[in-house]
């Protein structure tokens, strides 16, 4: 999750308003019988699984309802029947009007977002605080430490 430039924040939406986020996955080709899904987990509630439809030869898209600017975790999954064939890593983002990503499958065993609870995602290294937040926290910690040293506390 990156810093948010206020120039690109929709001023007509309050944080937490429901918005229809257009999801787009690029550089992906499915074979017969395969389906592509996005699994999204918001701050609260159950993971949502939404099937994505072909947009052109190499991209798929769909729409998911999310809360504006809420932190989400998401994962793309290719399934055939009941079998899970491929999946991407679990990524974090803020819910905005569009979520555009490239298909990057991982071959290692990665836990499914559908099977995780919110607390487990929060505890996993991949789902740690956004880099801007981490920097702020580490800066604050350094400042606190330097004050303690300065005042000999």
């Amino acid at each position, binding site marked *: 999750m990156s810093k948010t*430039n206020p120039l*690109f*924040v*929709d*001023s*007509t939406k309050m944080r937490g308003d429901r918005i229809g986020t*257009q999801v787009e996955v690029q550089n992906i080709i499915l074979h017969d019988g395969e389906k592509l899904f996005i699994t999204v987990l918001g701050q609260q509630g159950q993971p949502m699984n939404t099937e994505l439809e072909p947009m052109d030869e190499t991209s798929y898209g769909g729409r998911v309802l999310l809360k504006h600017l809420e932190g989400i975790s998401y994962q793309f999954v290719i399934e055939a029947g009941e079998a899970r064939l491929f999946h991407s890593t679990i990524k974090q983002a803020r819910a905005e*009007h*569009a979520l555009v990503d490239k298909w990057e499958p991982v071959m290692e065993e990665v836990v499914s977002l559908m099977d995780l609870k919110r607390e487990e995602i929060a505890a996993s290294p991949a789902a740690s605080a956004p880099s801007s937040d981490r920097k702020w926290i580490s800066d604050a910690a350094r400042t606190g430490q330097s004050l303690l040293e300065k005042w000999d506390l």
Partner: protein
Amino acid sequence: MSIVSVINQKGGVAKTTTALNVASSWAKQGKRVLLIDLDPQSSATKAVFGDQDFECTIYDVMMNQKQVEEVIVSSDRFGFDMIPAEILLSGIDIQLAAYFGREGILRRKLEPINRSYDCIIIDCSPSLGLMTVNALIASKDIIIPICPEYFSMKGIDLILSTLQSIRTGLGHKVGVRGVVITRYRDRKIAKEVIRQVREQYGLRVFDNYIPDNIAVEEAHHMHFPVYIHAPTSPAASAYMELAKEML
């Protein structure tokens, strides 16, 4: 009717020159054209009207003090209508920072006059601010003028990143109509840059390059479109053909 923005966050790439000469070429070809100057430096306004002062500008429209019809002026020389700019635009980001729907003001303001024109062309400021965001939200697509040099590639990166942010954050998809090569000289580096723009970014590069030609600058100085000031110059014919290619 289509609204197109001429944009490049890199300065000195002939944005205003391209906007003016394409707009006047479209007008000569019989199109009803409106040019909107969104740059606080007012280069397009000054190129068309010299040092003439305007009581009402795009600033008044954005600040909801005037209706858009009230600020349109016509240029017989250039053959198009125009909405002038003024330096007050430079502070508008602060004035509108807390305004509800600040990013879509221009689009809403243009709605009443959309059908009066075949083409609306917006000359953007090189800085990325609220006015540029408004231009992009109002536009169906953009034209990117570049001088074919190394830094122009960085400029394209910036623009494409801005378009992505507009789509993600504000939900508006803006297309790239094409890249205009300006100040072209037949050099190896120019050809290499053009090749990279086509192959690396997959963008359309218009076939009519605008040559590096003194007639363009002279035309600005005389407040004429280049096709009137120097009708036989290579730049005049290049802009005329480019305008056809862009439609």
